């Protein structure tokens, strides 16, 4: 019958050709993006760099560096457009397999002489090739153009190659997720929603849990909330470099070297490995579901009842808990009785409502609200159960103190009134704060002493959260590094009444000092920063500054004095001043070091270098202003007579540092500011000792209060 037999070529290529013909719009969109993003944008970026360099008369080295930064941050692992890859992958997946949503198309395709698996792999490969071929060509074109325009180095090249591999991994995992979304659903809209659910469910779950922990757990520590390097979501894992940059901000716009690239990679590889595993798992599930899939599923919402049940319950529970958070914002305390009742009712109501709506959407029928009532009931019970679990701490989060034998090491970070911000040991171009430094690097091995502090600390933290007005201890954070690799963080309040011997055992240990005070880990500071830094000593009244080159000598003297560093020493002595070191190169750093009367070596260093101001006497003071703070207002009185100033100085004290000080003995209701005769103001204010406020001060404040009241009355009258 047929005039000629058709020459059947390689089936794979025939199918690819056919698929490409029908996906021309998508191919055009992907190609356009790749062309614009890679060769075109790279040429523009290099041209812009050259232009800027010309305008600013940059040296050839700096201009090259600028070009490499521009190219590296655009096509390397720090690029910010990974979400486009994720989006493309999901669109290509859903578009490729969307024929399964239509009976008409299935009649057409499934009746043709191609096996189901052959069709699956053809579509799968087609989506992959539509993305991968323009990506590879675009990337190589941009590399060649960058080379031609002198904007490429070996590190940038390796960076770009690594990014090419990462983009392929991200595409693979997102593409598999998109296919799974299709295999679980029967129409286009629902498959899109399913893809979003699969992509963001774990992040939403983590966010919900963290917000509930923060809301109800009194010992919850924000530091422990830091983003993990990976979750299951391909989108989350794709953003691993962004998270690394957020905690190492300098690298966003820096010219990287191989070591830094390795650092970035060492953070990302786990996320990428998880992406590969997740992608492979999703693909395997998709294949199994595809083999099982029946043609008559076309047009349905979610195909499998167990999946429907899981999603219905999960979505409605999440919605209920989210609603609970919105409701609780209306109350001052989430743990109040009224707040608890409203939250419980709100959570259950929204969960039931959402559960009904989900079923209505499944069936596209408004009368299906109460269908499968057990699912509604299960969701409501689960949501209420989760709420109760957090609200009443059924898991014992606030009571958790690990066993000594389980802890490898610990870190104790006490909230101090001085702070450190200084270069990391491993990377002098990046600064870190004292909280990060302590919680990451302090390794206390005397676990029994740590537990002797954290046990009562947890207890007091629970009490203080209920009655935050009465401070009974020092706020702190503890990190337990468990032997099984976990890190457990808690916020605690160390009671003022705790046995000083226990605190001495911790604070006096070299592990504590090395983990807290930067003079023990200042190699980077000593080597680079001292050339551009400033060393300043301030005794509260006056300050004197010297060259940063003095830092090394100061650190030596200070380290010697720190041999006697302990809780008791700081608690019993009053700081006589503070040494500050500040520098801006190679990165910003700022460090405060408290000086106590017993720090003889430091004092001798300051004196010998002309950094120790003379003692300030009453005669040096122009005037003092005492301010009384009450709940709703404040009143002030000024004192300029030398006798009055002498009397005030006699009954007051200057707290340059309040580290490890309790609030007893000081009257914080009154503040005393000082104006010196040279026209300067003092750096710190004074506070009266408890019960030692001179009568003339009280009288002066009283008079001024009356005058102020009169003034207010006049004002009111005039109004």
């Amino acid at each position, binding site marked *: *019958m*047929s005039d000629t037999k058709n020459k059947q070529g390689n089936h794979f290529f025939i199918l690819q050709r056919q698929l490409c013909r029908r996906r021309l719009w998508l191919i055009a969109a992907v190609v356009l993006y790749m062309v614009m993003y890679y060769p075109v944008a790279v040429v523009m970026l290099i041209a812009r760099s050259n232009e800027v360099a010309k305008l600013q008369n940059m040296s050839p080295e700096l201009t090259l560096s600028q070009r490499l930064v521009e190219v590296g941050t655009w096509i390397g692992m720090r690029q910010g457009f990974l979400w486009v890859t994720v989006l493309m992958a999901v669109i290509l997946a859903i578009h490729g397999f969307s024929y399964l949503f239509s009976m008409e198309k299935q009649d*057409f395709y499934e009746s043709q*002489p191609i*096996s189901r698996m052959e069709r699956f792999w053809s579509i799968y490969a087609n989506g992959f090739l539509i993305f991968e071929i323009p990506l590879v060509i675009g990337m190589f074109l941009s590399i060649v153009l960058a080379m031609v325009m002198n904007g490429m180095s070996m590190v940038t090249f390796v960076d770009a190659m690594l990014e090419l591999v990462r983009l392929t991994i991200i595409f693979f995992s997102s593409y598999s997720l998109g296919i799974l979304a299709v295999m679980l659903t029967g129409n286009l809209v629902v498959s899109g929603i399913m893809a979003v659910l699969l992509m963001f469910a774990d992040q939403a779950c983590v966010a919900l849990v963290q917000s509930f922990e923060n809301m109800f757990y009194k010992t919850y520590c924000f530091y422990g909330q830091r983003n993990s390097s990976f979750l299951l979501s391909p989108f989350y894992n794709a953003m691993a470099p962004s998270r690394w940059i957020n905690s190492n901000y300098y690298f966003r716009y820096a010219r990287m070297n191989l070591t830094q690239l390795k650092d970035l990679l060492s953070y990302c590889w786990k996320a990428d490995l998880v992406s590969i595993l997740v992608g492979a798992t999703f693909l395997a599930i998709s294949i199994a579901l595809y083999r099982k899939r029946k043609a008559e599923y076309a047009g349905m919402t979610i195909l499998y009842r167990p999946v429907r049940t899981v999603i219905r319950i999960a979505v409605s529970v999440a919605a209920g808990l989210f609603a609970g958070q919105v409701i609780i914002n209306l109350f001052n305390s989430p743990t109040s009785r009224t707040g608890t009742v409203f939250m419980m009712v709100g959570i259950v109501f929204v969960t039931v409502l959402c559960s009904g709506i989900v079923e209505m959407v499944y069936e596209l029928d408004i009368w299906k609200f109460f269908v499968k009532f057990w699912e509604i009931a299960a969701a409501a019970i689960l949501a209420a159960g989760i709420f109760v679990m957090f609200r009443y701490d059924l898991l014992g989060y606030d009571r958790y103190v690990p066993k000594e034998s389980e802890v490898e090491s610990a870190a104790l970070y006490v909230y101090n009134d001085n702070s450190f911000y200084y270069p990391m040991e491993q990377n002098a171009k990046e600064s870190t704060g004292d909280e990060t430094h302590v919680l990451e690097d302090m390794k206390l091995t005397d676990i029994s002493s740590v537990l002797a502090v954290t046990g009562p600390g947890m207890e007091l933290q629970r009490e203080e959260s209920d009655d935050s007005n009465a401070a009974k201890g020092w706020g702190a954070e503890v990190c337990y590094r468990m032997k099984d690799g976990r890190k457990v963080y808690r916020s605690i309040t160390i009671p003022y009444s705790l046995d000083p011997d226990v605190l001495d055992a911790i604070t006096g240990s070299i592990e504590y000092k090395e983990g807290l005070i930067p003079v023990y880990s200042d190699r980077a500071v000593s080597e680079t920063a001292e050339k551009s830094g400033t060393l300043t000593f301030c005794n509260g009244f006056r300050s004197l500054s010297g060259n940063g080159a003095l830092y090394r000598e100061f650190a030596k003297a200070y380290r010697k004095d720190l041999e006697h560093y302990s809780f008791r020493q700081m608690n019993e002595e009053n700081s006589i001043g503070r040494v500050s070191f500040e520098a801006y190169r190679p990165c910003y750093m700022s460090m405060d070091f408290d000086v106590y009367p017993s720090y003889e070596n430091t004092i001798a260093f300051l004196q010998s270098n002309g950094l120790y101001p003379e003692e300030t006497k009453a005669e040096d003071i122009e005037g003092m202003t005492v301010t009384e703070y009450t709940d709703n207002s404040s009143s002030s009185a000024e004192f300029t007579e030398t006798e009055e100033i002498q009397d005030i100085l006699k009954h007051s004290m200057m707290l340059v540092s309040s580290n490890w000080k309790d609030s007893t003995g000081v009257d914080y209701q009154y503040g005393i500011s000082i104006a010196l005769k040279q026209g300067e103001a003092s750096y710190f204010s004074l506070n009266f000792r408890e019960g030692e406020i001179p009568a003339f001060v009280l009288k002066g404040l009283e008079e001024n209060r009356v005058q102020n009241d009169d003034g207010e009355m006049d004002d009111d009258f005039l109004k």
Partner: protein
Amino acid sequence: MIETMNLTKSFDDCMAVNHVSITMNDKEVFGLLGTNGAGKSTLLRMLAGVMQQDEGTICIDRKPVYDNAEIKRNIFFIPNDFYFFPNATGREMSKYFAEMYPDYSEYRFGKMMKDFGLDPERRISAFSKGMKKQLSLILGLCSGTKYMLCDETFDGLDPVMRQAVKSLIAKDMEDRGLTPVISSHNLREIEDICDHIGLLHKGGVLLSENMEEMKTSIQKVQCVFTSDEDKEMALGGLEILSSETRGRLCTLTIRASREEIEQHFRCVSTVFFEILPLTLEEIFISETEVVGYDIRKFIMD
């Protein structure tokens, strides 16, 4: 040969095809009759390998069809709503099928398009419903497959086109042994082309008969007997499907050959005796009434 054995397919609680056992011989036109919802499309989808049966077996040339690319090279399925690529022309569809079916003839496609007055370069989206049906039939005939499954394909065609297509099918049957399976909800649309009829109702097969055999095995007799004894003697041993008496004139539908009936009546005395030709409709009505159905209301509208 297409054989189904105890074929069953259900959608949720609805049994679409209920234990259907049918045999479709090569080089015969099999007509699949039934009302909307009778299960015709589902049965054809299973025969085309689009749907998988819940129970039973389908064998085409002794091989299962579902997910069997080798067997599907011999099958072209023309569903009620044939899918054409968006913005595609007839020529593009033809090229697509040329790559799918080894015996597809693009030359024949061009010729048939011309014969049917269809422009192969025109976008299919601009075609009328009838033109799309014609195009799908042309593509099916050009595919050169042994089996062509047509789901209500003739329903949208005008009488002239229907005849043209029927003659093309007949020619292909003669030339290359085409075996068409044609479903319809209207017997009159396909009675002149079918060799074998399967009647589906509510998922089950009411009957499956060869047309020729059906026509020769059932006769309509009008007669006036001289006495009741003669009547008893004449009809004794014959299978009477229906009987109607007006005055002395009896109209009978009898399952027997013409010769057999004549032999029975030769022995008795009749005032009047005549064997009348039976229309296909009448045969169907008689056959289905026997099993308790009145098909007039669902396939003779």
